[in-house]
């Protein structure tokens, strides 16, 4: 399953995505998070150390987390700000921590957290607006995926939905 979380309030991108995914017979689960209640991560560490795997913040991210552990790909649609994704886009990455455990190992020479559920989803980003530095975002998604021991599917502008969908298989 391909999980797509739209953190923007613009649903035209997801409409287009849905159309193209249907045409290509791709199994997508689209969450319109723009209208949901999703807090930032407060760094309490409870998901690693007090209630392992469970976030202490009981809001709409819990539903995304439950989908995420079964997803082959995690796509986030985000607005941009200050050369990066905006805080709503970043929050749905920060809140991902419960899918990892506290425990550590080395992977390709660098420290990583051991995954809680086995293989994690690959990560892709679709951006709206021109406030982002795309080259930097590509580097960032690579690093974020490295933390999940998965791979980056790339960074796509909202005008390049077709290219993004072509990576959804």
């Amino acid at each position, binding site marked *: 399953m391909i999980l797509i979380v739209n953190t923007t309030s613009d649903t035209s991108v997801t409409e287009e995505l849905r159309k193209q995914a249907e045409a290509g017979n791709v199994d997508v689960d689209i969450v319109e998070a723009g209208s949901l209640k999703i807090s*930032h*991560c*407060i*760094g*309490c*560490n*409870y998901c*690693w*150390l*007090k*209630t*392992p*795997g*469970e976030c202490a913040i009981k809001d709409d991210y819990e539903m995304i*987390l*439950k989908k995420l*552990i079964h997803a082959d790909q995690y796509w986030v649609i985000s607005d941009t*700000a*200050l*050369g*990066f994704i*905006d*805080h*709503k886009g*970043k*929050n749905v*990455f*920060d809140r*991902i921590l419960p899918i990892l*455990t*506290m*425990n*550590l*190992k*080395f992977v390709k*020479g*660098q*420290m990583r957290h*051991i995954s*809680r*559920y086995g293989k994690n989803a690959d990560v892709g980003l679709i951006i709206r607006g021109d406030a982002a*530095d795309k080259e*930097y975002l590509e*580097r*960032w998604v690579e*690093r*974020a995926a490295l*933390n999940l021991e998965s791979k980056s599917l790339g960074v796509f502008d909202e005008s390049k939905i077709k290219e993004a969908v072509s990576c959804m298989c």
Partner: protein
Amino acid sequence: MHVLIINGSPRIKKFSNTDKILDEFTKGMCEGGNTCDRYEISDKASWDAIRKAYDESDNILIAIPLYVECIPGLLMEFLETLTPKTGNAKMSFILQSGFAEGVQLRCGEAYLERLAKNLGCEYGGTLVKGGNFEIRFLNDENRAKATSPYADMGREFAACGNFNSDKCKAFTGPEIFPAPVRVLVGFFFKTAVRKNFIRDGESLGCTRPLDYKPYS
């Protein structure tokens, strides 16, 4: 020199590793009569005051815990509300993280240089160091051991006005651990470190194994 210092961690001050690091850093920085104001992003009630201080300051230092390879979402939310500076303001950063090797922080560091520019500030460099996850769980003695090296960096910042000196660059430590060290540390990960984490969990009231799977 007067510095506006913002702790960019969303974790409340009492438990914030960044806060403990800043305690030591400012001790060193303020020795020669330098002064600072300190604020916490985790305290949303103070955001108006932080914005005002930002508007009035030309020497800004943001201390940041690495959050998924970049800045925390909450800090981003705050920064989005700022008006870029137009004068001669300087923005410097302390970036610290859980993972210990320098290579883990470089992607975050690269963003901070862009961030300073996007906010209309001259980039005063970033003091980069990992291996700080445990600070909040340490006893006083071990915490002092972990944070006191930052006092010297505070002195260095006071002397140079930025983090570009060789001394600051060397503060990061190894970019990556040599293979024999990884073997040894990897062994500790499976033994002593694992036990430490279980103990940390117990101190928070954890009753489940740390690899528990609530949703499968």
